[in-house]
């Protein structure tokens, strides 16, 4: 009953959507891996970054793609300072406190955003928003192709940074052995703040890539974080490769779910995956054997 061409287009569209999911999930999993907490402020900070992209375009006319370096840099600095001034300081070195503080930060940001920006849906108009690329039977939106390629490139850059640079190695060292890290002279608190900043920088990138085809309201970050959390659980908590593979898988599942069950019910597939993973392989696809 299902035409193979439509199925092919569904899979491709899912992969393209998965690109941005990967970015959001990589940020979440990096923060989890190093700080050992779920960053509950993730959705709110994504929303803030999306507003930043929106206002850069509205007020100064900067194209969302051209805004990538500015918003990535700004998000990194914002995340770093947020950790240094608020999260790290108030947590007194206890992981469970960090969890509650990020939740509190999220509530504050959401409501301040509602107060300042109002509840209206804001969108960006770009000349390329309705451009399509034909690939076989599939008609793919150009902005989604750009966002997919850019997401994967950014993830590769981040992966190389974590694998090759001294700071990247220090981040991975702190993730598993904090005391050992202190004894080789790594400034562990600074690594925490850096990791948080990098996680938020991923959201900055995701915001730039989303805005040409998406909209922003003060609550638009949360939908992504629920998906990102599922991805992180699917890939294995704290696993970088898991978040990358999981993001693409979830993108395809959502797309096919929409195709088979209708647009409104597409997300059911994600929840089913979430429950199945918790039942069958709670450590996830790439979960660390602890």
């Amino acid at each position, binding site marked *: 009953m299902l035409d193979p061409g439509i199925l092919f287009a569904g899979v491709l569209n899912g992969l393209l959507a998965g690109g941005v999911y990967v970015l959001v999930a990589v940020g979440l999993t990096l923060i989890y891996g190093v700080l050992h907490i779920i960053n509950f402020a993730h959705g709110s900070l994504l929303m803030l970054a999306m507003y930043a992209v929106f206002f850069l375009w509205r007020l100064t006319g900067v194209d969302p793609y051209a805004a990538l370096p500015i918003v990535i840099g700004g998000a990194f600095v914002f995340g770093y300072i947020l950790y240094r001034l608020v999260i790290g300081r108030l947590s007194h070195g206890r992981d469970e406190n960090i969890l509650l503080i990020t939740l509190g930060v999220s509530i504050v940001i959401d409501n301040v955003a509602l107060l300042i920006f109002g509840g209206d849906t804001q969108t960006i108009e770009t000349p390329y928003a309705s451009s399509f690329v034909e690939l076989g039977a599939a008609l793919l939106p150009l902005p989604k192709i750009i966002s997919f390629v850019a997401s994967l490139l950014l993830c590769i850059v981040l992966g190389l940074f974590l694998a090759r640079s001294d700071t990247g*190695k220090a981040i991975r060292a702190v993730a598993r052995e904090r005391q050992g890290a202190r004894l*080789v002279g790594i400034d562990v608190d600074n690594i925490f703040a850096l990791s948080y900043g990098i996680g938020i920088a991923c959201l900055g990138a995701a915001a730039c890539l989303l805005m040409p085809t998406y909209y922003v309201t003060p609550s638009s970050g949360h939908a992504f974080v629920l998906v990102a959390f599922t991805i992180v659980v699917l890939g294995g908590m704290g696993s970088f490769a898991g978040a990358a593979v999981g993001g693409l898988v979830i993108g395809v599942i959502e797309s096919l779910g929409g195709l088979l069950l209708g647009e409104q019910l597409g997300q059911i597939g994600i929840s089913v995956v979430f429950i199945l993973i918790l039942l069958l392989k709670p450590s996830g696809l790439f979960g*660390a054997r602890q």
Partner: protein
Amino acid sequence: MLEIAGLRAGYGTVEILRGVDLVVGKGEIVALLGSNGAGKSTLNNTVCGLYRPFGGAVQFDGRNIADAASMSIVQAGLIQVPEGRRVFPNLSVRDNLELGSYRRGKPARRHNLDRVIGIFPRLGERLQQAAGTLSGGEQQMLAIGRGLMGEPKLLILDEPSLGLSPVLVEEMFALIRRLNGDGLSILLVEQNVMQSLAIAHRAYVLENGQIALSGPAADLAQHPDLRRSYLGQ
């Protein structure tokens, strides 16, 4: 090189070290002996800046480090090889060693890596392997190798023989003597009393947070109190 005077330290409000005096001179091996719970690890971790002391003075290389952060103590050249190794299990052997020169010794990283592999050929065979998959003895070598990568002026070895087979323990003590022969000052924290006294120049015995005995290692090895406490004689 290291001068500790009247050091009081502990965790939270519990005082474990109650006024410890200890000196390590340049080129010496000094053994710090004591049973479990005597406060050896507290002393180590306080000297290395992991915990703030309650009181007393710690001088290293003529500088007061009592309230310094662990990274500036590493920067100054005082490096600890901790009990339980504390290697980075998710990183390769090479990355573990390279992070040993994260704060200090970075310009000579390549040269020091060759030197450490020369000392521990086993590590050279496993450079790409994740440190968490090494055996206990190999992890101990890696922890010491990582410490050496930071070009220490004084190396604190905390229980390096713990969990090793008797043959490996022999090798470990021979290695410590060799490192010292190359000019490295060493504070050796051990439960293994007689073997430590055999290679140390001087020794301290820590009991209930205070120094109970101290002196040249050869004298302590003959001391009746020590023989009674640790050898049951």
